[in-house]
């Protein structure tokens, strides 16, 4: 078996607060292979972005990695500090942010921003960088790239700016891209274009993608595998078809049932009762048990069963019951 591009083992992130230490990411493990898109889903505050930030080494202090390991192409990167980590960013790990309107520097042309990124990581001349910047814009489908290279971000529409952001994230050819809600701030009509662009570019280059989103539609369209997160923990991990059509974890099931589908004439959307627990008030045992329709006695005190591919962190997974 080949080494996965990204391998996270038991990753935990802690934030010391006045009310004590909270764990926005708690013992999460998953792998992403070359050319694979792993969708990471969950509600706001489930820790999915926090895990992404931990991987690229951009946790905002006082948040920090408190346990576990992060391996990139067979090299352990979580102990790396400052300058070593900076050299990986952009070069080995690219990142795409949610809001294209705010993630580009308004005072520099898109060509400048592309060239400076490439010059930082690649041994090329200024002239080459300028040429490759045009090529990068062409690749992400910006019409008239050669003329637009000297344009400022405000001269592009939202969708076009997200294309520029993608070009920036990919311009040094990283082996892993973390896309943190890349379509959330965009018009619905543009979302699909951006997703298919991202998919195509990563397929062509064999880039591994961590696609963080709360949109099940995006997951269904783009992801190969899915990691479902709840309250900082992994709830379920598996192949996208299995997870979406036959969810094992009651939370995933609730999430799926509460996603509107245009094709089905549903009368009312399902709701998961209650809300995700605050990190300061995490329940014992399974974090989902106060909201779970299939809660058992042991759920409120026993530690969760071990997680693995195609499994759910649940004492009464749905599929198992169906089999029984």
């Amino acid at each position, binding site marked *: 078996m080949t080494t996965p591009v990204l391998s996270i083992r038991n990753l935990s992130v802690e934030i010391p607060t006045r009310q004590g230490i909270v764990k926005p990411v708690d013992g999460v493990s998953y792998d992403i292979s070359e050319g694979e898109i792993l969708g990471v889903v969950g509600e706001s505050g489930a820790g999915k972005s926090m895990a992404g930030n931990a991987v690229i080494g951009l946790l905002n202090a006082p948040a920090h990695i408190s346990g576990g390991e992060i391996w990139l192409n067979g090299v352990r990167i979580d102990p790396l500090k400052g300058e070593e980590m*900076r*050299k990986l*960013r*952009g070069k080995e790990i690219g990142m795409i*942010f949610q809001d294209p309107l705010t993630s*580009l520097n*308004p005072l520099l042309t898109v060509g400048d921003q592309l060239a400076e990124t490439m010059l*930082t990581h690649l041994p090329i001349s200024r002239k080459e960088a300028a040429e490759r910047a045009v090529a990068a814009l062409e690749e992400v489908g910006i019409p008239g790239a050669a003329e637009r290279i000297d344009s400022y971000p405000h*001269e592009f529409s939202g969708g076009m700016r997200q294309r520029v952001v993608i070009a920036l994230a990919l311009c*040094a050819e990283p082996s892993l891209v973390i896309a943190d809600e890349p379509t959330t701030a965009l018009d619905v009509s543009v979302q699909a274009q951006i997703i298919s662009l991202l998919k195509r570019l990563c397929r062509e280059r064999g880039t591994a993608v961590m696609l963080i989103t709360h949109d099940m539609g995006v997951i269904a369209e783009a992801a190969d595998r899915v990691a479902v997160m709840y309250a900082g923990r992994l709830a379920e991990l598996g192949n996208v078809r299995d997870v979406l059509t036959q969810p094992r974890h009651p939370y995933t099931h609730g999430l799926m049932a509460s996603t509107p589908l245009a094709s089905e004439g549903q009368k009312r959307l399902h709701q998961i009762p209650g809300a995700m627990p605050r990190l300061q008030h995490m329940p014992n045992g399974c974090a989902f048990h106060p909201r779970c329709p299939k809660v058992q006695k042991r759920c409120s005190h026993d530690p969760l069963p071990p997680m693995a591919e195609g499994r759910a962190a649940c004492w009464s997974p749905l599929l198992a019951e169906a089999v029984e």
Partner: protein
Amino acid sequence: MLAFIIRRVGQSILVLLIVGLVAFSMFRFVGDPIDNMLGQERTIEDVERLRTQLGLDQPFPVQYFKFLEGAVQGNFGVSYRQGRPVAEILMERAPATLELAAVSGLLAIIAGIALGVFTAIRRNGFAAHTIMAASLVGVSLPTFLIGILLIYLFSVELGWLPSFGRGETVSIGDWWTTGFLTQSGIKALILPAITLGLYQMTLIMRLVRSEMLEVLRQDYIRFARARGLRDRVVNFRHALKNTMVPVVTVIGLQLGSIIAFAIITETVFQWPGVGLLFINAIQFVDIPVMAAYLMLISVMFVGINLIVDILYVFIDPRLRVDRKGGH
């Protein structure tokens, strides 16, 4: 762009006309200069003759128009006290003030921006905290007190630097005199320049710091870091440039007030500039000098503001409206 500049120049002229009216009204409403000029022993004839000579017997609108007519040509009348043309006196004094203002302004801008950036980047460091605490002193101590303290320390106790005057000066051209070329001139400049620039420096520093902290929180800074750009590039090329728009505004205003508030520093250090001239003019109700000074300062303020507005356009591409847009 051109339309923008023309509009701004038009507004500037309007401001100057209003200031001109205020300056002119001083002739009418601030005491009677004749009293001061002639002293106790005078005859009615003397008073009337002087009044006619100075044009003070004419109706208000005529006087205002004459004042404006002269002002546009750089003619502000004759000083009541010295009996010489005001323009000539001002020209004589201007180099001293302009040199002092230029040095303090540069000091304030360079040190202010450098310290502001430093305290923003190392915001939790010991040095940054110390500088921030010290800057409170700079903001809260009045200028004259800083001047007096500096004189006490460096002139009286240590005896390193002169406490008053401009030192030896060298003439350049017809009317410009400079203190930059002699050792005593440079020595004499140090204390007044620090006194005048300290407040502006701390103000610029605190502004740069808070703006920079704000910019460092922006998404594009995170994205720049996520692309692995060097810290130096992120801090200076990305963050500082975005900090500059509000900072340039304030720097522009501060440069104006450096010249305007040179009065206090010039008084403390007996610096032979226009500020000291103005203070003396007030003591003797020398209205033509006061009016001319007022006009001079307002021309500078208006001019600096105009330059600042044009600078924005260079810094921020979003303000360049005539570029082609589209998607």
